[in-house]
């Protein structure tokens, strides 16, 4: 036997073995879809929805909401709905909060969910030593009293959005007795909630297997088992659905979305509560209102949405999307390149003598983020603005923003899944907030009284006035509302949620 013969035969044997091995180990394809498989774009680092970085990570709230209930539920259009709390509000003089706990709800271990669990969860969230990042909100109410399924508590500092936060970050009801018995570590190792699904298996960085909870108080989930695979790479995620290994996935390039939904897969694309925006820091040339106004007028947002995002976006002129409570369609900042040139000329700038500054952006953190900024820089150049692009990591953005050291312009995406103006315009533009880089005293003066405004109509009108001032003075450059692409196999109906959460209990067989 020659070496060549040996190799050829060996290779043939190897190939045959490989094929046999691969075929035997083939994944089960989507026949019948009893076990719904979702290729998710992010990992779940921890099963504690109220502590650490995971608690304030909007992208994993959908997983939490499959297992845990929030104090107050949220419909797909961001409006609040009865959940564990069936009724909530203030007393007449707004010195007390009053809540009614749903009866007949049970934890996944079968024990009843009581008003004591709700109070314990609220008090735990408000504990300064407890590590809840939203403690500053939860600590505005306290001294709770329970009578049956009724809870009353004192308003320690009036916070108009306290009930909205009950559908937002860290607003989860957790099992008091179970955590006290098993400790924090025991809870995270084998978490139980009162949501539609129970955790059957959890492999960190790999997958979660969920099993429908028969005792769930709401609509029973149609899919009895759900596997959520963590597939962080977009190419692999798309391949998972294309090959039939997964039935649902989300967050892929718009070109891939269009290609695949033109084939055998079904696509859903709906605007979500995330927006793309450019912070203006009131330093250097950004102190000049002509420069800021020109920078806003020179950007053709609709063209960017159409050409770069393939139409998957909604151009916006304030930090409120049309779904938000304080959205005001009358506040607009139209595309006006000639107007931009005139403004710049008034400050001595032109295409021959452009105003120069740095714009920071992420690259690949959000779809087409860098390309969007490149396009904006191109549009600016035409009117006399020469911006230099600096790419940074999202972690650096957070640090620079917290220390108020962002460049004169910085791209960011802002999420606000409760749609309240405090959690969009408020925190983004209020100077003393660690998330704002605009320190103008006039704006601080307008916003400050709104934090504790008890008259809801007056509060919302106040925020609309703030947004109008921001637009008039060009203190920020809102760009577009993101549209979330979801691909799924035929035979499944996926109901998107405006918060961006992909919720398996809303999925049904079509």
């Amino acid at each position, binding site marked *: 036997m020659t070496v060549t013969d040996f190799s050829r035969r060996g290779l043939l044997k190897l190939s045959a073995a490989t094929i046999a091995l691969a075929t035997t180990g083939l994944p089960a394809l989507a026949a019948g879809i009893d076990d719904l498989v979702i290729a998710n774009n992010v990992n779940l680092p921890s099963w504690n929805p109220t502590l650490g970085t995971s608690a304030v990570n909007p992208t994993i709230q959908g997983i939490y909401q499959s297992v845990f209930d929030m104090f107050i539920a949220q419909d797909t259009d961001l409006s609040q709905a009865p959940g564990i709390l069936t009724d909530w509000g203030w007393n007449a003089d707004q010195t007390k909060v009053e809540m009614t706990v749903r009866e007949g709800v049970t934890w996944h271990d079968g024990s009843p969910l009581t008003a004591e669990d709700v109070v314990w969860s609220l008090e735990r969230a408000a504990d300064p030593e407890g590590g809840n990042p939203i403690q500053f909100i939860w600590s505005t109410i306290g001294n709770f009293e329970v009578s049956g399924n009724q809870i009353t508590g004192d308003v320690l500092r009036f916070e108009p959005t306290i009930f909205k936060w009950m559908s937002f*970050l860290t607003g989860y009801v957790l099992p008091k007795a179970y955590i006290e018995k098993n400790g924090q570590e025991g809870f995270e190792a084998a978490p139980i909630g009162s949501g539609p699904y129970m955790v059957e298996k959890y492999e960190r*960085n790999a997958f979660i297997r969920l099993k429908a909870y028969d005792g769930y108080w709401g609509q029973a989930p149609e899919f009895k088992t759900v596997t959520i695979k963590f597939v962080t790479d977009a190419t692999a995620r798309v391949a998972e659905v294309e090959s039939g290994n997964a039935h649902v996935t989300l967050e892929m390039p718009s070109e891939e979305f269009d290609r695949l939904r033109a084939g055998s897969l079904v696509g859903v694309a709906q605007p979500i509560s995330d927006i793309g925006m450019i912070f203006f820091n009131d330093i250097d040339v950004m102190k000049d209102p002509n420069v800021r106004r020109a920078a806003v007028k020179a950007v053709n947002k609709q063209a960017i949405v159409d050409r770069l995002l393939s139409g998957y976006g909604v151009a916006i002129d304030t930090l409120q999307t049309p779904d938000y409570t304080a959205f005001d369609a009358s506040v607009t900042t139209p595309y006006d390149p000639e107007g931009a040139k005139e403004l710049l000329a008034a400050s001595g700038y032109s295409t021959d003598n452009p105003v120069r500054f740095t714009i920071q952006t992420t690259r690949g953190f959000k779809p087409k983020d860098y390309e969007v900024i490149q396009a904006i820089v191109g549009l600016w150049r035409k009117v006399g603005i020469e911006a230099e692009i600096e790419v940074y990591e999202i972690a650096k953005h957070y640090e620079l923003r917290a220390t108020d050291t962002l460049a004169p312009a910085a791209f960011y995406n802002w999420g606000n899944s409760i749609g309240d103006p405090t959690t969009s315009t408020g925190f983004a533009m209020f100077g003393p907030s660690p998330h704002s880089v605009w320190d103008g005293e006039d704006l601080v003066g307008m916003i400050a009284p709104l934090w504790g405004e008890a008259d809801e109509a007056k509060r919302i009108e106040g925020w609309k006035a703030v947004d109008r001032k921001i637009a008039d003075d060009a203190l920020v450059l809102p760009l577009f509302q993101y549209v979330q692409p979801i691909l799924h196999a035929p035979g499944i109906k996926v109901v998107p949620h405006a918060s961006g959460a992909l919720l398996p209990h809303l999925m049904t067989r079509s």
Partner: protein
Amino acid sequence: MTLIRIILKRLLSMSITLIGVAVIVFFIIRIVPGNPIAMMLPPGAGEEDIARLKALYGFDKTLPEQFLIWVRGILGGDFGTSITSRQPVMSLVLGRLPATLELSIMALVMAVMIGGALALIGTRQRGGKAEALIDVTNGVSLSVPDFLWGLLFILLFGVLWPVFHISGRVSPALDLPFVTNFYLFESLLRLRFDIWLDLVSHMFMPALALAIPLAAIIAQLLKQSLKETMHLDYVTLARTKGYSENHVILREALPNAILPTLTLVGVQFTFLIGGTVIIERLFSYEGLGNMAIDAVINRDLPLIQGIVILFAVIFTTVNLLVDLTYALLNPRLRHG
């Protein structure tokens, strides 16, 4: 005696290396922009909230104080607690290490098999079209980075001809009766071939993507060594004795020619483990590399430190083993 001295010397330098790595990683990751507290700040957090969170995670102390606390913890076997997962770093890192080791070893075995086979065929067919084809294949294999191989395999064997799993380490539907995280090894010991096949089906594409560049290096080096050895007198003597060409290559030339390749394989193994970072991410393989990327994105400083220290221990240990093996095989080194 000389060998013991070599071991002691290498252990000393290994310790110094590890201390250096610990110091560098600790301070470097605190100097680079991005801190975990800024990342977990909710909208509306005030100065008090920031201070409270800093105190909670120990970032309110000075850098030297933080370093001393960390070092004291390490000496007591405590590498700290992950900020994102709130689990002990040691258990997280050791829990993922077996997955990465199994993937790396599988890739190494594939690389040796592919590279060795190409080298033998190239030597047997030296000067012919087969050798030219192997040289071209080697060139292509070396020029294409491993993650591109991974993408190609996903398209070929994941989508167009879906025979292998695209992501993960094992199918979620399988119940694993294992007591260790060395799933591949333990499934064989327990004769659970169903799980073993499932594991291999998940590992095949990432392992092959990692293996191809290394296979090309092995093929080049081994073929070159074999060709040089084939001109030595003792090989010519074997030929004149009437041994077949296959016998001459496999029995006479290969044992001598393989030594430099073995040394290279040892060194390359450490690079292979480093290469798992991107490949694990691409295939969502639940190993150390994938965890490292998440840790960096989330600025999970204790976890980054733990992973880097573990990688450093692996690198230095493998290098030590390579040196010792070389010393054992080379009498001149063994006897000073």
